[in-house]
């Protein structure tokens, strides 16, 4: 059961010339008409320089793109490069930029070294699915969708290689965000929070983070044990077959062989369910844990912004005091300098206030959009997951119903 591309419903194409705000306004109510798929992982090169190339396919009727359907080949560091560009441009002004998937040295080394076993196939599939989800989330963001770097990533056949992706990896960005957060915490600023909304929201996200982590850990245990169950069922199926082979009683022998077949099918079923547990449920949770880290980062940027404004106000005050001193001391050239500085810092204070108001406004909107997306995402995933569970049970019914007459046939 491979994770599938979520299909989006069609909507009216966006006209290129409208203002960014208009597009965003409309987008808030719309479903986006763009669909991204990441597929066909292909190993390129040999040894430690080898890498995986993924096909990124875009299907869209949005007129900002040159074609309706097109695809390009990208490698993992390209994704990281895209994310770092978007993060640099948009994080500090309050946009929640979806984080890129994590780097994994162990996983990737196995693939490079050429281990063709199931664990490296699983790793590649896990990464492919994560990259797909990452792009889907990014294009869903109305502002990011307009970004030329994103468009270049999706469209152009050649992409300049992202350099220094070590610092730019998802983990690297997260580290930057966390450092900023730490810096904020260490600062003994008591921010004059004029707006309780922000405090409330921060607390909510903090709680949500904790709860999601707990849930994620418990779902991971579920996945693990379901895999174990699958392996044990397969082993039992084999021994039931052997027992059937050596059974003297003919009808019983046949029934045991049938039992072995049923158990083998059930083992497959457990495996598929474990995949669903993981790709549908567990990965969603881990995506959101990282998304919330990005949200927290954005709140911290707002605090830094306030700090800057506050610092500017303090400096302005100091400059005014300095001017007053100069006036008393009657040093005309120094007075002029002081007046210049005061003008400079008044401008900075104004800019600081504007920036702070802008980031606050952006965050409010972003959080609203984020929560809406989150509700939709979770609801969709829950339903999909439950449907996978139903599927499993229905298959079980089928298998046991087929087996029952075989058991009854033992004479």
């Amino acid at each position, binding site marked *: 059961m491979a994770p599938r591309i979520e299909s989006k419903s069609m909507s009216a194409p966006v006209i290129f010339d409208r203002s960014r705000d208009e597009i965003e306004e409309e987008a808030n109510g719309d479903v986006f008409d763009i669909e991204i798929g990441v597929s066909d992982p292909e190993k390129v090169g040999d040894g430690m320089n080898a890498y995986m190339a993924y096909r990124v396919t875009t299907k869209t009727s949005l007129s900002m793109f040159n074609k309706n359907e097109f695809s390009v080949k990208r490698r993992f560091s390209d994704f990281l490069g895209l994310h770092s560009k978007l993060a640099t441009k948009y994080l500090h002004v309050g946009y929640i930029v979806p984080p890129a998937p994590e780097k994994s040295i162990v996983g990737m080394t196995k693939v490079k070294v050429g281990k063709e076993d199931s664990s490296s196939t699983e790793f590649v599939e896990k990464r492919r699915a994560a990259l797909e989800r990452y792009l889907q989330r990014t294009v869903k963001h109305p502002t990011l969708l307009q970004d030329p770097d994103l468009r270049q990533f999706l469209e152009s056949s050649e992409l300049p290689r992202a350099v220094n992706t070590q610092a730019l990896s998802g983990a690297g960005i997260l580290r930057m965000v966390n450092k900023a957060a730490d810096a904020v915490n260490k600062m003994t600023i008591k921010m004059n929070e004029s707006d309780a909304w922000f405090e409330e929201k921060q607390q909510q996200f903090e*709680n*949500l983070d904790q*709860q*999601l982590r*707990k*849930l994620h*850990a*418990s*779902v991971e*245990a*579920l996945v693990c*044990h*379901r895999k*174990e*169950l699958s392996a*044990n*069922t397969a*082993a*039992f199926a*084999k*021994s*039931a077959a*052997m*027992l059937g*082979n*050596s*059974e*003297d*009683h003919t*009808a*019983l022998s046949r*029934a*045991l062989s049938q*039992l072995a077949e049923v158990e083998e099918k059930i083992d497959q079923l457990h495996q598929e369910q474990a995949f669903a547990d993981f790709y549908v449920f567990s990965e969603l949770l881990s995506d959101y844990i990282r998304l919330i880290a990005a949200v927290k980062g954005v709140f911290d940027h707002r605090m830094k912004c306030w700090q800057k404004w506050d610092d500017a106000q303090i400096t302005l005050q100091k400059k005014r005091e300095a001017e007053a001193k100069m006036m008393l001391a009657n040093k005309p050239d120094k007075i002029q300098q002081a007046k210049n500085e005061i003008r400079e810092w008044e401008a900075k204070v104004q800019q600081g206030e504007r920036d702070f108001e802008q980031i606050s406004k952006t965050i409010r909107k972003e959080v609203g959009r984020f*929560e809406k997306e*989150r*509700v939709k995402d*979770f*609801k969709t995933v*829950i*339903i999909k997951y*439950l*449907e996978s*569970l*139903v599927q499993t*049970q*229905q298959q*079980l*019914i089928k298998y*046991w*119903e087929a*087996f*029952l007459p075989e*058991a*009854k046939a*033992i*004479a």
Partner: protein
Amino acid sequence: MEENPDPGEERQPCSVSMDLQGDGALQVEISDAVSERDKVKFTVHTKSCLPHFSQTEFSVVRQHEEFIWLHDAYTDNEDYAGIIIPPAPPKPDFEASREKLQRLGEGDSSVTREEFAKMKQELEGEYLAIFKKTVAMHEVFLQRLAAHPTLRRDHNLYVFLEYGQDLSVRGKNKKELFGGFIRNIVKSADEALITGVSGLKEVDEFFEHERTFLLEYHTRIRDACLRVDRVMRSHKCLAEDYIPVSAALSSLGTQEVHQLKTSFLKLAELFERLRKLEGRVASDEDLKLSDMLHYYMRDAQAAKDLLYRRLRALADYENANKALDKARMRNREVRSAETHQQLCCRRFEHLSDSARQELTDFKARRGSAFRKNLIELAELELKHAKASTLLLRNTLTALKGEP
């Protein structure tokens, strides 16, 4: 092979199907059982119109060691050499369950009160299930004895059923332990016999076939037992995993925004119900598959023991033949050699006839027991799968209906 529905079966969670003809002559059951610190006390209740007993209905209290004493009395009895002696019930083992309960008590502070209560409930259920199983195993042992036309007439059985005092067999003393050790050495010699290493010639096709069959069958059923136990443990593990998932969903639900609240709370409830269903699947597999395989592994061993005894009798017969030839050659003590040879011959033939019947019965018994349990297993699996499907569908409908 006929299959008689057994009315007494419904009470028992035990999976072993017995063709127990309740003919009123001797009816045995375990009417009560008490689990004390490190032992279980079984109340054995007998109803009989046989003249050997002083009453028609009576009870005694027995412990596991006394059952073993009875079993050994049968296996040591030369008269029953040609019979498959019903396998002894396994020792009651609450160790693992007790350990788990203790560990739970020692506590893990990250667990909520509800989670703790649920885990405790699971473990108590497990303890109860083990208890019920041990009662059933001990009961089946006695019932098979009571149903066997030859075995039911044994004096030791009467003593076991009626003698009010304890049988002073608890705690094997050194002599008995040593005896057990000797028994095992003899067993290995028998293994050599049965695996053909000793060079003994088997002329009877039926027994040759049975020997090959049982050797392989026993190995494979033992293997199947190990593996089915692992499957069962995985299922239990999975059911237990649903507890923290449900708890996490529940706490998410209580904190969440309005639109997701119901979804998470409903999901939490769903997982709680799924846990119970998954737990039932695990315990049904335990009873219908695991218990049955374990029992027939022990029964197969008992059948192998019968074959050993027959081969020993054959060896004795062959030796007696050789001794007779020697005596005839030397013309000394021919009379006694002849008598001895005749005795061995009669014993071997009688044993073979009895064994032939017993092994045929074993095959029939196996067929009907597996049939019954596999049917019940399939029916229960279907029941649980249908219940799960209904539960899941209802939750899906409720969630999809949400704005």
